[in-house]
């Protein structure tokens, strides 16, 4: 799998160089802006100290200096938007319109990427993996018919809950930020299966499946209405692939299968972003592994369904 990534990365090297050039421009502009702000702050404080009236008390003096720093940063912010921001936008544009679609195309030729679209709130609710939330946003929509005509749709999701603290002030609590994918399976398995984060308090105890794997039990709890059917789908190979992914990538995931829909949620945080300050190869490698794993898992599950003649 990683060999494939190296090849893909090699094919994208020209675009990545272009990206690197944009990053350098961004860095230069950022440094210039910071120097400008520094000079501005020093000059303004110097002017203030030279011409201050004697009636300005020590406390007021400090407040005025802080105000000067604040103003300087506000100016820097405005300058950044027009000056540095443009560069960052150009960087992101190259990343999202050239590099990412190319990476996805190399993983599966049928995948298409629409940065501004996302999965609907209804899909998130139907997954059975949604936790309390009252604010929802989604972007970076990827879709396509992967092998065996299984339609795969995925996007980044940010679900938050606005709570009220003891003082009556609103507090934003993040309930999920990561990738949600939904795939249509070959056929309905007439079951309701869930693989969720391991918890001391078990949900439906009768539906809980204890897998003879310490590693699996360390990360997950598994529930199913029909246990035998669930184990036919989640064969030893599939379970091992899931454990391997979690151990290597340190990304937690949750899975549900409801009739003919397969849902998988990765707690990745922001995904499919350029990350101008981050290492491009590491980022692309992460996006590649997550996407590849997801597709591979769906294919394996479809095969398990076929083999077991469910």
């Amino acid at each position, binding site marked *: 799998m990683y060999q494939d990534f190296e090849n893909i990365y090699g094919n994208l090297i020209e675009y990545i160089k272009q990206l690197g050039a944009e990053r350098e421009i961004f860095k230069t502009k950022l440094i210039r802006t910071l120097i400008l702000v520094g000079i501005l702050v020093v000059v303004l404080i110097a002017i203030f100290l030279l011409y201050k009236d004697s009636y300005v008390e020590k406390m007021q003096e400090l407040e005025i200096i802080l105000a000067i720093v604040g103003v300087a940063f506000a100016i820097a912010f405005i300058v950044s938007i027009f000056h540095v921001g443009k560069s960052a936008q150009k960087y992101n544009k190259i990343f999202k319109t050239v590099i990412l679609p190319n990476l996805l195309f190399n993983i599966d030729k049928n995948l298409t990427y629409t940065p501004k679209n996302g999965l609907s709130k209804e899909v998130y609710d139907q997954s059975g993996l949604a936790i309390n939330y009252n604010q929802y946003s989604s972007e970076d929509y990827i879709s396509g018919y992967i092998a065996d005509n299984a339609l795969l749709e995925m996007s980044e999701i940010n679900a938050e809950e606005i709570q009220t603290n003891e003082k009556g002030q609103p507090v934003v609590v993040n309930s999920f930020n990561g990738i949600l994918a939904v795939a249509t399976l070959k056929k309905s398995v007439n079951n309701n299966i869930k693989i969720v984060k391991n918890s001391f308090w078990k949900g439906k105890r009768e539906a809980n499946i204890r897998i003879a794997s310490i590693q699996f039990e360390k990360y997950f709890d598994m529930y199913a209405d029909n246990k035998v059917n669930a184990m*036919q789908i989640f064969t030893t190979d599939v379970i091992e692939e899931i454990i391997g992914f979690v151990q290597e990538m340190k990304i937690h995931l949750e899975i549900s299968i409801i009739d003919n829909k397969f849902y998988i949620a990765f707690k990745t945080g922001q995904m499919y972003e350029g990350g101008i300050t981050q290492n491009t190869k590491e980022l692309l490698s992460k996006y590649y592994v997550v996407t590849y794993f997801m597709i591979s898992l769906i294919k394996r599950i479809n095969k398990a369904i076929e083999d077991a003649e469910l």
Partner: protein
Amino acid sequence: MIILGIVLVILIIYVIVTYNNFVFLIKSSEQARSTIDVYLKQRFDLIPNLVECVKGYQDYEQDLLEKIVKLRQQYDDKHDIESATKLNDEYNKIMMLIEDYPEIKAGEQFMHLQKTLSKIESQLQAARRIYNGDVTKYNTKLNIVPSNIVGMMFGYKPKELFQIEENEAKNIKLDL
């Protein structure tokens, strides 16, 4: 005195919770075991059909049939892992026998049978994993402190895993 009382209450609660856990795991593993029995029965019920398929291709069909009928009877009486394993071994021998005869494999009767068998095998394997998962959890509880103390108090014994061999290609020498 109050502290002693609190400790005692905590201990009693722990014993009750652990005991319930043991009972739940035993029930769950028994349920899983009976699911295995259902699939084993379905699988073994197909043995006469299998023997029918190999008839005429080997000289000792009568012996094989008699042996299988005997083992089947043993399994029906005992329903334990040992008798299931013995019967399963004979079953695998028939399957290996068929491997050597492409003409049997190509037959419509066998193809239909094989389809049914592979479905049952998949279910059997899944049921076996569920049972072994329950038993592993139960045995672990019996081995770790302090739940093993509760286990000993109620006389619980470790359970055997279900390690019946699946029908896979093995190099078995058959006298044909």
